[in-house]
């Protein structure tokens, strides 16, 4: 009897779920007729099974599968960065710093380029000066601002399209200065021009 009781008590969930074969069902029914403990257990279990769980709503059920898969995909992507030793926050900070540096450099180069206008063909910046390519207007433009007095080249400081003749002359080699002096002399540019 006790052995039956214990066995049947263990089998009540399966009995309630209808998972037992017919003969065992009959045994349990007979036992339940005379065992108050097991009847109470069964009634409680039955009540438990009937309690409803509040529905979180259709939206939750519909969106959950896609949400889980998408979230996992995103986590994987983030983790794949981590496997290469790249941490998102420091990497972003580094990229931002690199971008700022690039902007700064390009600004700096631009301002230098503006100073040395590529359209301006500087006749004095080449090591051997070839005046054959020098336009008459260009000579005029340069010499207009230069004067020689006692072999000293003087310049009327002016910025023409961002060019300073002072600085250009400072960059010249002594041979270039001599060539320029000769050129100026041949054009009778001795003395002040202005």
């Amino acid at each position, binding site marked *: 009897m006790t052995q039956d009781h214990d066995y049947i*008590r*263990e089998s009540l*969930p*399966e009995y*309630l*779920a209808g*998972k037992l074969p017919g003969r065992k069902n009959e045994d349990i029914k007979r036992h339940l007729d005379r065992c108050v403990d097991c*009847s*109470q*257990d069964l*009634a*409680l*279990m039955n*009540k*438990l*099974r009937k*309690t*409803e*769980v*509040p529905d*979180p709503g259709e939206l*939750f*059920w519909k969106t*959950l*599968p*896609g*949400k*889980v*898969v998408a*979230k*996992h*995909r995103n*986590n994987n992507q983030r983790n794949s960065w981590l496997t290469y030793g790249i941490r998102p926050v420091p990497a972003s900070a580094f990229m931002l710093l690199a971008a700022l540096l690039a902007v700064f450099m390009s600004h700096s180069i631009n301002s230098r380029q503006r100073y040395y206008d590529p359209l301006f063909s500087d006749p004095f910046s080449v090591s051997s000066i070839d005046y054959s390519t020098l336009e008459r207007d260009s000579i005029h433009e340069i010499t207009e601002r230069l004067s020689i007095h006692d072999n000293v080249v003087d310049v009327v400081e002016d910025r023409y399209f961002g060019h300073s003749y002072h600085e250009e002359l400072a960059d010249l080699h002594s041979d270039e200065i001599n060539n320029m002096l000769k050129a100026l002399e041949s054009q009778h540019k001795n003395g002040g021009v202005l």
Partner: protein
Amino acid sequence: MDDIDLVEQYLSGNEKAFEELIMKYQKKIYGLAYRMTRDIEESKDITQSTFLQAIRYVSGFRNKSSFKTWLYKITYNLSLNHLNKRKKHEAELSESIIGNECGALGILLEKERGYEILKALSGVPDRQRLSIILRTYEGLSCRETAEIMNISEGAVKANYHNGLKKMKVLIGKKGYDSGS
């Protein structure tokens, strides 16, 4: 298509296969979480976390147990974590706040909603509660329940019977008749 086929399909790159698995089990997982926590929001969180953990570790899923048992095991662990966190949080709250929540109005609402049984269920210790839930609601065998809870079958039986006994006492105290 059975669960193992769907898992294999997912592992070979078909994401829809895992979505199908979620659709198949989401209500069961949510139900289990709700019976453990009796909180809709917590149960939604647990459900989502269960599937996230499942999809993350599915490549390590060994066919030793069924996919359903494996999912239940994850849900059980997550529910226990939630309950432990909640207990900590509740301990931090003042007695008066908890007292108000469990006041006469609360009891009335519980009765009206027919949740008195669930309330009695929540009155039993976590492990006993889970063994009742898995055995009664889910109809799992002692062996499956033991596997999920990572305890012996004997311990499942003890937890289950002690839990039912305690529930009967709790219901008796409130004047409910478990036999009706």
